[in-house]
């Protein structure tokens, strides 16, 4: 089985997955009791006004018909118009994607750069105080909620030390400095739990590999300890670590929602919250589809990475 053949099959496999997600989210939204038309019309609207809005939005048609209209449009790249923001969903997502992507990227970058060396160090000094501190921090990082970490960091760095801005977001086009400055606190906040997760996984995985025979071989060659750790141990320990990082990116979506709220960042997380509150069907559907697609792609990327990390893995 060639690699490209495998890739092709996997890409083909995303089609049914996306279809299931589409059906599921479509049904979920329409089967939960609530009426977007009533929300748009407001508290003082008459029944006729609500009915009129409903027919404008096409919500009075049979559900199956609505689904085929929507999915037909999606296939041509048209995600419809937001009920609430009065814009096309595509342009709405286009505006909101940069902050979220920046936040996610920064978070993962910080998490990996901090967690992997920490985990390797903890494994290397297994049982020492460094190990215990890293593991203790890891438990703490798991258990403290994102918004608590967020407000703590805001208080420390923004209010008390006054080093960084409290909230907000600056687009990269308006200056890289401000962009980075405003991303540090939110990504730090969000990365705490991933640092905990990845550091722990790295430690366990490296610790296991360190007792392997080839580590002894490397030492017998006169290789220094750092190279033994990072060249021989880490790469062999990488598969579970990469798996966890992949899962982490996928789970980031939940964290993004909270973090964007805490730091008032106009990203997809905020958009999702606003859209759900407003029962903005087209927006919710598009965002969920997008998230699912990203999720599937990350999984695929992780599987592909395995083959790079370990030549024994072939599909």
């Amino acid at each position, binding site marked *: 089985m060639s690699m490209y053949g495998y890739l092709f099959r996997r890409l083909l496999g995303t089609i049914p997955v996306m279809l299931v997600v589409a059906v599921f989210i479509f049904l979920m939204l329409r089967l939960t009791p609530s009426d977007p038309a009533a929300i748009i019309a407001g508290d003082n609207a008459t029944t006729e006004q609500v009915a009129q809005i409903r027919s404008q939005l096409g919500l009075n048609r049979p559900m199956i018909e609505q689904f085929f209209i929507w999915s037909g449009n999606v296939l041509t790249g048209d995600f419809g118009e937001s009920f609430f923001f009065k814009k096309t969903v595509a342009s709405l997502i286009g505006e909101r994607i940069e902050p979220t992507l920046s936040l996610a990227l920064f978070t993962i970058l910080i998490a990996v750069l901090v967690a992997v060396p920490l985990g390797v160090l903890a494994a290397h000094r297994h049982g020492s105080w460094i190990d215990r501190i890293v593991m203790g921090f890891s438990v703490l990082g798991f258990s403290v909620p994102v918004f608590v970490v967020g407000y703590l960091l805001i208080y420390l760095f923004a209010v008390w030390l006054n080093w960084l801005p409290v909230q907000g977001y600056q687009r990269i086009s308006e200056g890289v400095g401000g962009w980075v400055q405003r991303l540090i606190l939110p990504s730090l906040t969000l990365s705490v739990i991933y640092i905990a997760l990845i550091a722990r996984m790295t430690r366990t995985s490296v610790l296991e590999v360190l007792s392997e*025979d*080839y580590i002894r*071989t490397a030492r017998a060659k*006169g290789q220094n300890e750092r*190279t033994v750790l990072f060249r021989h141990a880490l790469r*062999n320990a990488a598969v579970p670590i990469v798996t966890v990082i992949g899962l982490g990116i996928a789970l980031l979506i939940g964290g993004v929602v909270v973090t964007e709220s805490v730091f008032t960042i106009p990203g997809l997380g905020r958009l999702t919250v606003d859209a759900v509150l407003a029962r903005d069907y087209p927006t919710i559907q598009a965002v969920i589809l997008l998230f699912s697609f990203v999720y599937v792609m990350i999984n695929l990327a992780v599987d592909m990475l395995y083959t790079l990390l370990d030549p*024994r893995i072939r599909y």
Partner: protein
Amino acid sequence: MAEPVLEIANLAVAIKGSGDRPHAVRGINLTVGANEIVCVVGESGSGKSVTAQAVMGLLPKNAMEVETGSMRLQGEELTAKSDADLRALRGTRMAMVFQEPMTALNPVERVGDQIGEVLEVHTDLDPAARRERVLEMMRAVHLPDPEQMIDAYPHQLSGGQRQRIMIAAALVLDPALLIADEPTTALDVTTQAQILKLVKEMQGRKKTGVLFITHDFGVVSEIADRVVVMQMGRIVEQGPCEEVLRNPREDYTRMLLAAVPSMTPPRRSPVSGPIVLQTDKLFKTYGKRSLFQPKARIVHAVSDVSLTVRRGETLGIVGESGSGKSTVARCVARLVEATSGAIRIDDVDIASMKEAKFRPMRRRVQFIFQDPYRSLNPRRTVGEAIIEGPMNFGLPRKEALQRARDLMAVVHLSPDAIDRYPHQFSGGQRQRICIARALAMEPELLIGDEPVSALDVSVQDQVLKLLDEVRRKFDLAVLFITHDLRVAAQVCDRIAVMQRGVIVEQGTTSEVFAAPRHEYTRALFDAAPGRNREFFVDKAPEAALPH
């Protein structure tokens, strides 16, 4: 006499914390001269590997440390050296080859890079020059097609090729001392012969001093100039190879030598009991081509195997790894399903019988596995392990326990020990327990899949005697899988030699050993280390056997 390459004087290595003894090794005095191969022989726990690790400075830091003594490498004291200084010596002036070529190479790095790593650490050669030197070294250890193989990963190589890579990496900077820790133990006998030849050739090339650790006297007789015998962390005896092998001074050495099974099979009269097991044209094929995978790999693990075992008879299946000998055993016990052919137990074909129908017959065929450390559940007492089977077949617990106690006595263990856990027993004792567990089912056919291969030679001898004893006592048919010709010679009435899934030769043990007909059988015999030597010592070796 020229200065020795390695000189160990009065070395003691302490075990930190509370072990069963305070020192891993103690009072070690030995030297390795240039162009000399010194074999350190001993059973597990004798401290031979610890000695090697101490020299290399590779003792596990939080478990052991050098307490007293001196180790000199070409006159230079090693015990006083810093970690960094020792690192600089490793790979350049002393190098090491390990037992398991399967695990001693980094699985995710190209083999060429792993040889080149030594050059990377210790020299200023640029990548192109390194590659050139690596290729040269790969040619020197006779690896086929080095230009291709240099970019291969370890899993793409055979065991013997991997061990050649290890040797190339160890010798690429022409160290004065090579330490080889059981380098051929995990290899097939024909591969072992080639690697031994290579070690000899390589050490002669640059007059390297070799410290060769092994438990196998056959290997010792093939390559040693001098022999050091170790027991329980001490050196029992040392001297020139011939002298130690021919005229051992110490009882322990004599006992070890006497325990090496002879290559000459004892006289056996043919067994004429009823046929218990008969396989007819047995095939086991892995992989299947289908419409979707027309190029799927098909492996014929077992092809056209027909054999019989009579009551009271031991049939040995001899072969190297991958020959299919274990697969035959597994098919017979229905641990894997045969692809085609018949397996008759007492004339009932079980090959394609439904599992539910076959289950009552499972009692009749019992298995003893290779590794006694892993074939007993560590969380259950040995009594529970023994009674589980009989109770599954309806024996009341009380009677089952009585049977377990009786069987413990049969395998020469205390009946009261049934309440203990497996970790409280030695390897040999555990294998006895496994035998008791198999006997508890009152089987007709006993299958041993390399049952003594993981055991020390003196223990191996005892377990083999026990197997022979129970075979006679219970009139069992035994299917004995082994790679060891010496063991086969001693326990088998008849022998089937397997190669690549096929039985190439079958006959009585004395026939096959006296006049092997197939060329593969002859190759196996030629490769057996110390094949022309009898390690028999006439001075009452039995007296030295521990009981």
